[in-house]
Structures are given as C-alpha cells and as structure tokens.
C-alpha cells in the first residue's frame, strides 16, 4: 500500500471529471423538479444518452456530434415520460421506473455493435499559458469543453431561476400548479419543456461517461449514477450551486475510492466500490430532516378540468 503515490493535483482534476456526469444529470433533474415533476427515469435517459452519443461519435468520428446526439437522445426518451405523465396523467413514480427499465433494455439493444469499440478522443481545451501553471493549471484550465459547459449550465440555471421572469414562472408552476394555471400560465407546456431539458442534460451526462470518463461502451455502464443524481437534488435542497458542491463531493468519494483501490489498501475492492452508494444514503439521512425547500407540487398530477 502506498498512499503517497496518489497525486493530489491529479486527484482534484480527476474528481471534476468523475463528478461531471452526476452534475449534468442532477442539474437537469433540478429544473424538472422545480417545475413540480418527479422524473425517476434519469438512469434510463443517461444510458440512452451514453449509447446514442457513443454510436454517433464512433460513426462520425466527431465527439462534438456525439454529445449533441446524446442530448437529443435523452430528450427523445424523456418524451415518453412526457406522454405518460403530462398527456395521459399516469403516476410519475411508476412512469419514471418504466423509463429506466425501458432505457436500460433499449440501450443494450442499440449498443450491441459497439462493445469493445474505442471512441474518438474528446480534445482538451488546453488554454495557452494558463494550463501550464503549476497546481491550478491542471485543475482549472485543461479540461474538455463539456466539463466547462456543465459548470456554465449550473451558473445559468441559477441565474435564470433567481433573476428572470421565466424562472419565476417555472417556480410558480412547481410550487402551485393550480394557481399558476389560474394566472394563465401553460402548466403542461412549461413542464414538458422542463422535462425535455432534464432529458437532454441526463443524456449529455451519460455521453460524458461513455466518451470521456471510461471511454468505451458496456451494458448498464451508468451503474446507478442517475439514481445518485436524483439523491443529489434532494441533498442540494433544490439549489443549483449546492448541486455543484454535492456533485464534486461525490466525485471526490468516487475518485478517492478508485485511487485507494489502485494503491492496494487493505480494504477489499468490493467494500471500497460500495462506498459511493453508502455515502449517498448517509447524506440523504442527514439532509432529509428538512423538506421545506421541496417544490410544493412535486410529483402531483395536474389536470386542468377542476
């Protein structure tokens, strides 16, 4: 065992990479939940994003097109959830589960030809001069564009929710859909847009796993990241910056755990691999006392006739 072999600078840099899929999926789900919809299909949308992004990137040789395809793939799958919960008013918990089960199957079907294929590499944005700085360079200035995009999405979601009219309407729909409807806002239309945004973000997060983090395709490769993202939204009390904090915390746990595995610590590999899930549970327990910040209409079905 040799813990001194773990380089703290590389650790922080890889922590950010490990956290980005969770961050993308969670910030998307945050918007969905702020609009009052509980979509438990994050895992399914992520894995569909992972395979559609992977397939397009391999076929075209362009990771950028792959990421675009993954966002479209995630949003397309979320349309099924839209149909079930917004059009035919099905139970959101059951519909979300259906989305995950279906997405896992469909992705395995789509991915058959891509097992063992190497995807084109996603270029890093090595910002001149800045990326050569010691310590800060590798941590802050030499990542891939999607990682920066994920942080930009968090910042813009925060700004939109806090300072704009659109954000206010979205929150109104999530807090009290009947009142929002009475004020003339299109509850269903707003929710559909939120769900599709959530799907696109989850899809991007999935593609980040298959194209950058791993990078290859294996069945069920998201391995519960979508569910951790759902937990993260609760952890963050539905606040964007806390999602970022939480995602990096979980990223940190994952990376430290992997580094300890590599360093050959006396703890068996299986128990180290459990740790991200156990920590998610512990964090949920600590934070679940305070439910006051949850959107009041979360998970409730809206039907305009009454």
């Amino acid at each position, binding site marked *: 065992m040799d813990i001194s072999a773990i380089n703290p600078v590389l650790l922080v840099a890889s922590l950010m990479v490990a956290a980005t899929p969770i961050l993308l999926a969670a910030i998307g789900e945050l918007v969905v939940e702020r609009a009052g919809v509980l979509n*438990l299909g994050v895992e399914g949308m992520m894995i569909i994003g992972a395979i559609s992004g992977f397939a397009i990137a391999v076929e075209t040789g362009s990771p950028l097109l792959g990421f675009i395809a993954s966002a479209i793939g995630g949003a397309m799958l979320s349309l*099924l959830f839209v*149909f*079930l919960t917004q059009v*035919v*008013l*099905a*139970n959101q*918990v*059951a*519909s979300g*589960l*259906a989305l995950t*089960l*279906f*997405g*896992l*199957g*469909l992705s*395995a*079907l789509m991915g*058959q030809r891509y097992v063992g294929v190497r995807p084109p590499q996603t270029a890093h944005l090595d910002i001149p001069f800045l990326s050569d700085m010691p310590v800060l360079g590798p941590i802050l200035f030499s990542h891939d564009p999607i990682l920066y995009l994920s942080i930009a999405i968090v910042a813009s979601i925060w700004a939109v929710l806090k300072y704009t009219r659109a954000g206010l309407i979205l929150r109104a729909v999530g807090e009290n859909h009947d009142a929002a409807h009475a004020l003339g806002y299109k509850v269903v239309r707003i929710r559909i847009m939120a769900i599709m945004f959530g799907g696109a973000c989850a899809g991007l997060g999935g593609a980040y796993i298959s194209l950058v983090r791993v990078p290859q395709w294996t*069945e069920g490769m998201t*391995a*519960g990241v979508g*569910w*951790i993202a*759902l*937990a993260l939204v*609760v952890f963050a009390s539905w606040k964007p910056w806390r999602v970022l904090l939480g995602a990096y915390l979980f990223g940190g746990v994952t990376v430290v755990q992997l580094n300890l595995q590599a360093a050959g610590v006396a703890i*068996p590999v*299986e*128990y180290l*691999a*459990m740790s991200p*899930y*156990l920590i*998610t*549970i512990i964090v*949920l*327990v600590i934070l*679940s*006392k305070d*439910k006051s910040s949850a959107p009041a209409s979360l998970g409730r079905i809206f*039907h305009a*006739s*009454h």
Partner: protein
Amino acid sequence: MIVLEKRPQPSRAWSLATPLVAVLATMVFGGLLFAVLGKNPVEAIRIIFYDPLFGEFAFYYRPQLLVKGAPLVLIAIGLSLGFKAGIWNIGAEGQYIIGAITGAGVGLAFYPLEAWYIFPLMVIGGALGGWAWAMIPALLKVRFGTNEILVSLMLVYVAEQLLASMSLGLLKNPDGFGFPGSRNLNDYASANSWISQDAGMHWGVVAAMIAVIFSYILLNRHMLGFHIRLTGEAPRAAKFAGVNPGRLILFCLGASGALAGLAGLFEVAGPTGQISIDFNVGYGFTAIIVAFLGRLHPVGILLAGALMALTYIGGEIAQSQMGLPAAAIQVFQGMLLFFLLAFDILTNYRVRLNTRKVA
C-alpha cells in the same frame, strides 16, 4: 379537441381490460421492433408466446414456467402491498440477493451434515436476510423521513458488491479449484429446494402460491389490508382512521423484503444452485412490472407472473432459434409497462371529443 373527463369512480371494466389491451399493444409494437431488427415478427411472437406452451418441445418448457414465474410472483406480491399504500420499495433485487446469501450461508454452515431441519433453517435465514435489508430503508424512512425509493435502490448496488465479495471470499467453494462461486447446493441433499426437478416444482413455487392466498386474505379480509388500501387511496382519511404510518411502512417494506429474500433463497437452493457473482438476473426489477401488470391484485399478479415468465422463456428460445438479441426481450418487457401505464388513463378518465369553444 379531445378532452379528458375524470370519472367519478374508476371504471371496473377498463381496470380489468387495460392489462389485456397493453399486452396486445406490446405484441404489435414488439413485432414492429423485431421487424426493424430484421426478424420475422409473426414468427417471433409465435415463438415467444405460443411455442413454450403448445409447441413441439412444450413438455420441456412448461416446467420452466413455474421456475421463472415463482420468484417473480413471490417478489411482486410483496411489492404490491407497499405500492398500494404509496410505499415504493424498488430495491427488491438487493433484498433478493441478500436473502440468497444469508439463506445459502446458513445451509453451507451445516455442510456436510445431512438433517431434516437444515432447509427450514435456510428458509428462515433467507427471509430474515431480505427482511433485514428492507428494514434499512424502512427504519430510515420512519426515523428520519429519508426517501425509501433512493435508499432501497442504492442498497441494490451495495448488495451486488457484497455478493461479489461473498462469492470470491467467505462463501467460495473450498473444493472449487479457485473458481469463484459457492458449493453447488444441488449436490447437497439437505439444502435443496427442489421437489421435482422434472416438473419444475420447488418450494419457491409452493411459497408463491401461499403468498398469493395470504395476500388476498390480508387485503380483503383483514384490518391491516384495509389500512394499506386506505393509505394509498385516501391518506388523509387514513390519518383520521388512526392508521399508524410508521408501522405501515415497517410492515410493507418488511414483508416485501422477506418475500424477496425468500425468492432469492429458493432460487439459489434450486434453479441456480450456487452463489456466484452474477446469479441474479434482475427478477427484482421485472417484478415491478409484474406487480403493475397484475394491477397490484394477488390473482392478477399470479397471471402477470406467468405471462412475464413466458416472455423470459420465449425470449430465450427466440434467442437461440432466431438470433434475437437478449436485450430485445428486456425492451419488450419495458414496453409492456409503458403501454399499461398509458392505457390506464381509460380507467380513471373518460375520453371525450369536445366541440365546444373554450371562452
């Protein structure tokens, strides 16, 4: 414009018809999917739904129906109790794994002793293991208000790691030449759940039947069952009726955990035979579909379990005969849940054509 009008009371006729309509729709769209994959859709549907029951080799496949159906029914019965009350245990797969580990662990601890009491002790061990695993989300929910969906699901991944650790370490067969996996319980007469292997009968099938009967009595003839239904349909009324939500959560999650644990034990002591890294094939998740397809009703779940077992067996035949990918059956099962949820609207709403202009 099409508008939805809420029915004063859910339609009984549609409630019974939607599962059938959903199955038909799944056959049509599943057939389309198979056609897209370049397979003959009619032949695929025939192989999946007809051949295992009435085809040339039906005598071989029919017992399989019991083998695959038993764990699905056993788990789904447990899940349906919670689902009825709005308590969502979706970590049955984890409870299934833990039940298998603890139950098999009890049996292996006695090896090579042969005695009549070993198998009953294993059954108790399996049920307790699943129950204890389900108590984690239950107690956390009661004590801290933690979301049981997320906790029970996280515990599936923890259980899978534990399973890997067990089959590589503690429960590894000492005479297994270093291969992962435990001793094969099929070679250990006292720890064997088979009644008749040729008929597909093992104690899990018996347990599934008993669970169906007990759950029917519980839901229709017992105060606790009434409280479960009341909590799901009218939580406020349940509160006034003096239902203790904490106890209900502990009961529903505990019962479903114990049943899932039992299913795991019967599977590992019979059809699978040994604890190995990947002995679990996702019954815990498919059982969610079974529970919904059966309308959370014990008899419905029995039928739905049989149908879902049929798609597993038919899927395997289609895989070997037509080269249909294994994932296609998974998609097929997911589709079924989709159509079911979609057609369910007809139970609660009336679809009307609205010609009146909205002011």
